[in-house]
């Protein structure tokens, strides 16, 4: 799953540690989410979206094929 977390964080001049503290997670978690090594749970995704005043879809992009694309092949 792709995300715009790094961009959003940079826009606010926050370090990974700053963001981690605001989300109440570890800095390693923020790093893993940013580089796409870990997909956050829905509650954490909502927390991230709320923090940036955005929607989950605006931050996270699903790269897997959509259901209708899967069934059409």
């Amino acid at each position, binding site marked *: 799953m792709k995300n715009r977390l790094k961009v959003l964080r940079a826009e606010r001049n926050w370090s990974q*540690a700053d963001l*981690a503290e605001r989300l*109440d*997670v*570890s*800095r*390693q*978690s923020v790093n*893993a*989410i940013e580089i796409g090594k*870990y997909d*956050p*749970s829905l509650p*954490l995704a909502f927390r991230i979206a709320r923090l940036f005043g955005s929607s989950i879809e605006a931050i996270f992009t699903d790269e897997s094929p959509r259901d209708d694309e899967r069934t059409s092949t």
Partner: protein
Amino acid sequence: MLERRTWKQWRYRSAILAGVLVFFGVSRLIRAHSTAPYSPAWPMVTLMTAATIVFAGYTLFIASFIWRTRDEFEKSGRLNSWYWGGSFGLMAAVAFLTFLRFGGVSLLAPSLSFNSSEMNAFAAGFLCPIIFQVVGFLIAYTLWRRAR
């Protein structure tokens, strides 16, 4: 700089370490006061078992606090590691036991006497933690399934 959660985790780990030291102190005290230190006399067995239960309960109690300090990323990492690492370890242990049981290590005294009671005792001791781990996993998995 260490995060607040990391400090907390180290505090809890220190508490577990303190528990280990107390446990060793208590077990030494129990053995020192028993008339036959290594005999299966019931007062010593009972006291040692009770001390071990208290220590195990204390450790699990503190471990639950450590678990709560972890975020979901750390938790998922640990769950994955325990599942895959634990499964691999269990299978490796069974293979290792087979190797030992059939005299794979000739330097190991019990392995030399093939059907001896020593070897059986060794095998039982070896299998004991594996069996308890599997039983623990089955109980945890059953509870998890029932909760859903």
